């Protein structure tokens, strides 16, 4: 799998698959935020597991430097536009660019690299999404309370984002990415490689 410049064909595929990833992200994050504070804080790893399939497909079809950065940047931009807390978008963009340049790099891409990069991206994204609830805790909680969210929920959130638990969540982020990558590769092999749509 050689590393070359991005062409128009690649950009369009990135656009289409990022659309799919974003829709999945929206559905999961909204669903999980309702079910309660426990599930709420775990939405980033879960999103990563499901989106792993799409991302692995994207990286397999376009094994080039820049793909991950662009996909992450666009999702980051969208999260800004939709009013999520600024750290979410930043986490997505920074995570994507770091993972892309540090891991995928300028040389040839292997499946190991793909999974590693996606794990890193997922971990940083999770940090960006959930850590603020701890770091800016007071501001966050005051806001959430003022907004009318019940004390119960807020208490739950506080408990979930205290340091020991927070580390668990962040690790879950990396693990989620790892699992998502593995799952993605498995599905790639089962369907897309077998059908000849993707080079192994």
């Amino acid at each position: 799998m050689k590393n070359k410049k991005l062409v128009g064909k690649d950009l369009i595929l990135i656009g289409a698959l990022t659309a799919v990833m974003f829709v999945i992200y929206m559905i999961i994050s909204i669903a999980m935020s309702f079910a309660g504070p426990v599930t709420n804080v775990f939405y980033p790893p879960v999103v990563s597991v499901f989106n792993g399939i799409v991302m692995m497909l994207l990286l397999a079809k376009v094994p080039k430097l820049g793909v991950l950065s662009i996909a992450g940047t666009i999702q980051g931009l969208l999260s800004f536009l939709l009013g999520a807390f600024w750290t979410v978008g930043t986490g997505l963009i920074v995570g994507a660019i770091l993972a892309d340049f540090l891991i995928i790099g300028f040389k040839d891409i292997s499946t190991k690299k793909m999974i590693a990069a996606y794990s890193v991206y997922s971990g940083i994204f999770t940090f960006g999404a959930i850590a603020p609830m701890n770091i800016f805790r007071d501001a966050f909680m005051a806001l959430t309370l003022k907004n009318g969210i019940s004390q119960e929920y807020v208490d739950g959130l506080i408990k979930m984002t205290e340091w020991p638990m927070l580390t668990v969540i962040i690790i879950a982020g990396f693990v989620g990415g790892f699992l998502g990558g593995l799952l993605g590769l498995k599905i790639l092999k089962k369907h897309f490689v077998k059908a000849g749509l993707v080079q192994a």
Partner: protein
Amino acid sequence: MIRFKDFSFCYEGMTEDTLKNIDLEIKDGEMVLLTGRSGCGKTTLLRSINGLIPHFYPGKTNGDVLYGDESLLEMKPSDIAGKVGTVFQDPRSQFFMTDTTRELAFGCENMGYPREEIIDRIEKAVTALELEEYLNRSIFSLSSGEKQQIAIGSVYAMTPKVFVFDEPSANLDHEATSRLSGIMKKLKDSGYTIIVADHRFYYLRDLIDTAVYIENGQIVNRFSRDEFLNLDNDFRIQKGLRTSYPERDIGTIPEISSEIEASAERNLFKVDGLTFAYDKKQKLLDELSFEASSGDVIGITGHNGAGKTTLISILTGILKEQSGKVYFKGKRLSAAKKRKLSYLVMQDADYQLFTASVEEELVLGTKVSDKQMIDSVLDKLALSEFRECHPAALSGGQKQRVTIGASLIKNSEILFFDEPTSGLDYDSMIRVSSLIKELSDNGAIIFLVSHDFEFITHTCTRIFDLDVEKNGKMIELGETTLQMLAEKYFHSFKQ
């Protein structure tokens, strides 16, 4: 204008050349038809003209393709864009913008033309192709034919000297094909060089200058228009070509096999007073009533938007009728029962394949595990060797057979086919026709929605039409009305 000099091409990853030693000269202002069986290489030839080969579809080239004096192979697609314009087969995946006017401007904007010039160019395109009523609309609100007109307009505004069309009629109904023919005529009269690849070409019979027949990547025959239109029927069929005169070559309408007709066990499918409307003003389907029994192969014709898809959606249980009743074997059918009984083979098989092997695909959704039954179905559909293959790796025709196989395993008694021959060459069309006849001989009731006149007259025992009487009424066509319909569809091509 365009010249192929001993040109050969092999796609990256393939072992055999798709095009072999092509020598072809296309003059300024000439309209050339490229035709041949599926997979013969006509699309590859087109891609060599518009620059997609070798930049978009990498591979090994030999020889040269010239545009005037320049080599197309050495130019980037970005530079070829203003010189050669391409209109592709699927109108749904050709547009970039969500607004029609912007889509018309797309090519010009890419070329970097200043605003005033872009407006000028769009104006000329809209006037020449009569697109005024389609300006400033959401592309999603247009029909396939209309989308395609916008695609042509977008290319026209770039004023290329050469127009390339890749199976443009595949997704169009008769009206839209007629309009396409009109547009091609205007292009020809304006002096553009036009190259068209298509399986169905009756709509071009008064326009082409030359027809080129390709087989296995090589140009095997070259015909002038007269020669092509007067091909001996047997020769034409042997070459796997459709007819240029569908209205003339109707042949005999098939009859239900006598065994079935005599059999006492004919299932009766009855529709009574079916009505459906999407908006309150106009009923799409108005009090439709008919009966069908085992062995019937019923064709449903009508222009896009007449209600064919809606009717099928209702009969398969995806949509609920607003009034009226549907019965099978005497019992009233609910939407869920309709879904259980019926099976729909869609136009695009990609929406219908879910698993990683043909065998798995056949039994999906059913609880069947009878090896013998599966084996016999695979055998019947010539799919035995593909048993372990991933459905997505198969050709279009094979994918279609897989979905038909699934219907056999499901033991559906009512089958619906939506445009089963769109984009198929003659041989495949005949194969589908035979398969359908076999299915009906085995007792199924079959409904076909199709624009393919040749196919319908070959396959259907009865034909229903939604166009002859408008306002949501459907009538059954007899021999005379069929002839009348043929005249209506093909009258503009009368010599």
